[in-house]
C-alpha cells in the first residue's frame, strides 16, 4: 500500500468508526482529492463530512478549532505547509492555548494535515518544512511519519487525540510503499523508530530525509561503516530517549532535516541528545537540512538546496573517519525526485 492509500484508509476507517470525524480542505472533494488522500471520501461519507473550503486559511482554521471546541473532530488539509503561515494566529494563539488558558475546561481535537513540497521548481513558497515553528509551541503535537505504516497509525492516533496535531506529509513520500495492516491500529506519539541498526554513527532523519538516510546507510555499509538509521517520526513530543541511546552507542550523530537547520528541529535534537547524555559527554555531530537560503526553482540549484544520499553519506563518513579523504560516491538522483514531474 502506498503512503497516499495509507492516509486515505486511516481517514476512511476513522470516519466510519466515529461520526464526529470530518474532513475539510481546499479541493478535498475534487477529482484530484488531495493527491488521492481524500479521493472518494465525499462520495462515501457525504458532502457534509467531506467538503471544500474557500481560500481563507486563518478563518477556516478558526472554524476547525470552533468545531473541535464543539466536540467534532475536524481534519483540516493544506496542499502546502507554506500556507499555514496564514493561519499561525489560530494555530499558535488559539488552538495550542485554548485548553490551558481556559483552565482545562475545553478540548481541541483537531488534525491539521500539511504537505511539504519539493522538486519541479516548487520554489520559494511551496517547499518549506516549517515544523520547528510548531514544535516551539507548547500545546501542539507535531508528527511527520515517513512510512505508510506510520502514516496510517499516526493519523488514527492524531484523529483520536484530544489535542491539536500538526500532521506533516511530504510530497515525495506519497508513492512510497510498505505493508500496512488493514485493521485499525495506532502508532503512539513520542516514539522514534529504528529503521536500521548500526554501531558507528546515528543518522536521524525527519520525513522524506529518512528515505535519503536509508540510501546513505547502504552506501556507508559498502564502505564498512555501520550506520544506525532512526526515523524521528514524532517531533513533539520528541523521543529523545531512543535518539540518545543510539548516540550513546555510536558516539556520533548526524541529523538530517527537511527544513532549515538554524533554530530548526535539528538544533533541538542535537541539544536534547546532548542534554540527555549529560553536557559533559562528548559526541561528534552534524546537522544537515536546507541550504540557508530561499529555495530556488532552477533545477541545478534546487538540487544543491537539499541534502541527498551522497552528501549525507559523505558527512557521516567524515564523522566516523575524520582524517580519511572524503568519501567518493556516485551521485544518482533518488528515484522519487528524478521521477517527480510536478507540476505540484
Amino acid at each position, binding site marked *: 500500500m502506498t503512503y497516499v492509500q495509507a492516509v486515505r484508509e486511516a481517514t476512511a476507517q476513522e470516519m466510519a468508526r466515529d461520526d464526529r470525524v*470530518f474532513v475539510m480542505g481546499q479541493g478535498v472533494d475534487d477529482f484530484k482529492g488531495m493527491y488521492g488522500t481524500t479521493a472518494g471520501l465525499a462520495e462515501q461519507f457525504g458532502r*457534509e*463530512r467531506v467538503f471544500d*473550503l*474557500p481560500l*481563507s486559511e*486563518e*478563518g*477556516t*482554521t*478558526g*472554524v*476547525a*478549532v*470552533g*468545531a*473541535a*471546541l*464543539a*466536540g*467534532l473532530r*475536524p481534519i483540516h488539509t493544506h496542499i502546502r505547509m507554506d500556507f499555514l503561515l496564514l493561519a499561525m*494566529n*489560530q494555530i499558535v*494563539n*488559539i488552538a495550542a492555548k*485554548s*485548553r*490551558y*488558558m*481556559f*483552565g*482545562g*475546561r*475545553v*478540548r*481541541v*481535537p483537531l488534525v491539521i494535515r500539511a504537505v511539504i513540497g519539493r522538486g519541479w521548481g516548487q520554489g520559494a513558497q511551496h517547499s518549506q518544512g516549517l515544523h520547528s515553528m510548531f514544535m516551539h509551541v*507548547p*500545546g501542539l*503535537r507535531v508528527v511527520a511519519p515517513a512510512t505508510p505504516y506510520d502514516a496510517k497509525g499516526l493519523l488514527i492516533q492524531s484523529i483520536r*487525540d*484530544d*489535542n491539536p496535531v500538526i500532521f506533516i506529509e511530504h510530497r515525495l513520500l506519497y508513492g512510497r510503499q510498505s505493508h500496512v495492516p488493514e485493521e485499525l491500529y495506532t502508532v503512539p506519539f513520542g516514539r522514534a523508530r529504528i529503521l536500521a541498526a548500526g554501531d558507528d554513527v546515528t543518522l536521524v532523519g525527519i520525513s522524506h530525509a529518512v528515505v535519503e538516510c536509508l540510501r546513505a546507510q547502504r552506501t556507508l555499509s559498502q564502505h564498512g561503516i555501520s550506520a544506525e538509521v532512526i526515523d524521528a517520526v514524532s517531533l513533539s513530543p520528541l523521543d529523545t530517549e531512543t535518539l540518545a541511546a543510539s548516540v550513546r552507542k555510536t558516539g556520533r550523530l548526524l541529523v538530517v532535516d527537511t527544513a532549515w537547520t538554524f533554530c530548526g528541529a535539528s538544533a533541538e535534537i542535537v541539544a536534547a541528545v546532548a542534554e540527555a547524555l549529560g553536557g559533559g559527554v562528548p559526541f561528534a555531530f552534524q546537522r544537515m537540512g536546507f541550504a540557508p537560503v530561499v529555495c530556488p526553482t532552477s533545477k541545478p540549484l534546487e538540487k544543491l538546496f537539499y541534502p541527498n544520499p551522497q552528501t549525507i553519506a559523505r558527512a557521516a563518513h567524515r564523522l566516523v573517519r575524520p582524517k580519511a579523504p572524503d568519501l567518493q560516491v556516485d551521485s544518482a538522483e533518488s528515484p522519487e525526485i528524478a521521477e517527480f514531474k510536478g507540476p505540484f
Partner: protein
Amino acid sequence: MLDRNFYRQLYRIRRVEEELVRLYPTDQITSPIHLSIGQEAVSVGVCEALRPSDVVFGTYRSHAYYLAKGGDLRGMIAELYGKATGVAQGKAGSMHLADPDHGVMGASAVVASTIPQAVGYALAMKMRREDRVVVVFFGDGATEEGVFYESLNFAALRSLPILFICENNSYAIHSPLSSRQASPDICRKAEAMGLLAERLETLDIYELYARTCRRVTELRAGRTAPVLIECLCYRWKEHVGPGEDFAAGYRSAGECRAWQQADVLVTVGSRLNAAVRQEIEQSVEEEIREAFAFAQCSPFPAGNELYTDLYA
C-alpha cells in the same frame, strides 16, 4: 418580567465592574481589565434572548457578555484575582474568561480571533442538526481584521445559525473609526459578504432584545442567512484599566455625556417600582459582596498547577 431581568442583569454587570474599579488600585487583581461600563445593554439585550444551551464567544472585554450569558460570578471574580477557585484556576484572567458549562466559550486577547471559532461552533451545531445558535461579540476594530471577512463568508456560505454582534463604540484603543476605516458602514460590509445586517443607532435594549429574539428564532429554524447586528455604544472608561481618560485628548467628556444621559440602567430602572428595584439591588449587592469575599479568601493555585491542563 423583562424589565426585572434586564435591570438585574444591567445592575449586576455595572456593579461588578464598579467594584473592580474600586478595588483595582489595591493591586490584588494583577491582570489587565477591559471594562464594559456603558456598553452593558448590548450583552444583556442579546443574551436575554438566548437559551442556556446557546453559546457565546467574545473578546477580552469579557465581563458583560460573560455575566449576561450566565457565567459564574464567583468563578469570574476569583479568576480575576488569579485564584485556584477561578473558572480557569487563575490561568485565564479577565482576557480569557470562559465558562463552557454556561455556554460562555471564551475570550481572546487577540482582536477578532474568536470570530471564526464561533463560526466553527455554529457549523458543528448545523452538522448535528441542533436548534442551538451561536452569538459572537466583537468590537468595531475587529471588523478591520481580514479574518472577520473570511468568517462572514464561511458562515453565509454554509448558512450557519450564528448572530454576529458588533459593539461599535467607535474607538479601537484611542483611534476613532474614521481614522481606521475608509467606509464606516459595517452593515454594508456584512451584507456584501452575504449576511443580513442591521444597525441600532441607539442603545435601546428593548429594541435589541426584540430584534435578537426574531433573528434567533429564524436562525434556529434554519430560515435565514446569518445575521449581523451593529450596536452603536460608548465606552465610558479608558480602553484598559479602571480609570477615565477624557483628559488624554483623543475624545471628549462631552462626547460621553450624551451616552451617560441616556444610561440604559437608569431607563430600565425607572420602569420598575422602588420595592422591586431595591430587592434586586440588594440581592445583587449581596451576591457581589459574597463573590469578592470568596475570591479574596480563596487560595492561589499551587505551584504544580503551572504544568496541568496543557494537553487533554
